[in-house]
């Protein structure tokens, strides 16, 4: 079976990287929906010894008119060209609270590779509010189960001027045992200076004994590799698991707020298709 056609590479994440489900191929007036629960285990802060395990919702709705809701991403497929997908995209940048924890985490959808997780000094880091970001996506298929995905989103951060551009290459593997679906995604996320400053910068007013002033410029925020493994238990029930390794890059990695460059996140959950 062509795995590319299986639109259920479910992930459990509150990721700020927005990716999109495949274009809808269904009868007019129909929909394809997944709803489920799972758990996610990730470092509380990058470099921290303790990990945090919490429940995670799994949400993906697709309608025949092209509209989709995937985790915290709402978009619409507009392309009628085979092999090409594009459209507008709204997403929620989860922000973070003073402890460094992402807000609105634990709501996931499809193909959402995790981004780097940072270690923060709870006493020094200002709150960054969750923000609605807007932009678009373009995906291109190259055959052999390979898809290039990209999304551009603007509006992150307290000043709502953060810009994120994510580009990733996804390979879906064929020839696996029945009802097992595996894909590997490798990508990078670029952020503008506003975003980098807000998430990785340290203003003179925020400096302390443990924090020096830091003013990063625009650059690649992270590189990540994600492995998705889905197991169909029946036409209705799906077991979805994901492992992500993210490496902080460039000036995000050099930030005094980044204590560990490599981060591992594991997610798994059960979804009902209706």
């Amino acid at each position, binding site marked *: *079976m062509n795995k590319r056609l299986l639109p259920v590479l479910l992930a459990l994440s509150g990721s700020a990287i927005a990716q999109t489900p495949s274009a809808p191929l*269904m*009868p007019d007036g129909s929909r394809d929906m997944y709803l489920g629960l*799972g*758990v996610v285990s990730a470092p509380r802060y990058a470099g921290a010894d303790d990990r*945090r395990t919490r*429940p995670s919702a799994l949400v993906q709705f697709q309608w025949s008119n092209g509209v989709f809701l995937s985790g915290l991403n709402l978009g619409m497929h507009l392309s009628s060209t085979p092999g090409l997908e594009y459209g507008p995209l709204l997403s929620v940048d989860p922000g973070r609270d003073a402890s460094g924890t992402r807000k609105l985490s634990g709501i996931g959808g499809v193909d959402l590779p995790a981004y780097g997780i940072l270690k923060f000094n709870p006493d020094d880091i200002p709150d960054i509010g969750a923000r609605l970001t807007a932009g678009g996506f373009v995906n291109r298929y190259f055959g052999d189960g390979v898809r290039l995905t990209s999304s551009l989103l603007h509006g992150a951060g307290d000043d709502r001027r953060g810009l994120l551009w994510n580009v990733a290459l996804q390979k879906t593997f064929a020839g696996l045992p029945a009802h097992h679906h595996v894909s590997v995604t490798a990508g990078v996320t670029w952020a503008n200076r506003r975003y980098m400053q807000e998430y990785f910068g340290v203003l003179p007013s925020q400096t302390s004994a443990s924090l020096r002033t830091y003013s990063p410029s625009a650059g690649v925020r992270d590189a990540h590799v994600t492995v998705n493994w889905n197991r*169909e238990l*029946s036409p209705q029930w799906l*077991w979805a698991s994901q492992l992500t390794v993210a490496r902080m890059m460039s000036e995000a990695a050099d930030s005094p707020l980044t204590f560990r460059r490599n981060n591992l996140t594991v997610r798994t959950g059960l979804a009902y298709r209706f």
Partner: protein
Amino acid sequence: MSIRRLAIATALLLAAAGAFAQTAPADDGFSAADAAWMSYRDAYRQMLRFEKYGKPKHFIQHHFQVVPKDKAAGMEGVRLLLQGRTMQLELPLDAAGRAVFPMSKAAYDENARLALNRKSGQYVFQPRVSIVVRADGVYEAADLRAACEQVLNYLRDSGQAPSGERKCAGVVFSYARNGVEPNVRFRGVDGQASRLRIDEGGAFSDDSTVAFRTVTYSFAEWPEKGQVITQTPPVAIGAVIR
């Protein structure tokens, strides 16, 4: 500590999944817990992709195919059923294991399943692109070359083409082993006709079963212009891609 919590939560979810995945007790084989099945929605997507395919496809067709994983298993007695909440429809399989796929909104909305009266793991469900059989049995050589290219292009575009550089090498006409002897000839522009050799093998180049008598029209062995004439209609015409 958190790893232990993750393990406990995972174990609980797995237990729940096992309970949810149980199906009705075995009766006719279709509803057995270990019956081979596939989501109708996933199969529907594959079929609709071909319907919406925008490049030339007038020489080719798309089916849903059931293929035995074990060469010895065969297709004898294999039946395919579309099972929904309010529907139950048997889909006849041809000698090559292909079924005409019903594009049913009701089945899609009910999240129906396609089930076999065989155990899971013994058979594979897959989309199958083949070349349309002509009623008059006369195929222009150029049309067969174009048909093979159409198959290859579709497989490439849909991500189903085997990896590596692949080219069209010919087409294969397959006939039931217990039917009349195949008679396939190549007629050149000079009117001279030559009979093509009969072999045994699978209906398609990626099919390793030896279930058919086959006649391969190899592009390299025959002139570009001419006709291929079949005396009796084949079960299937597949593209030979190497």
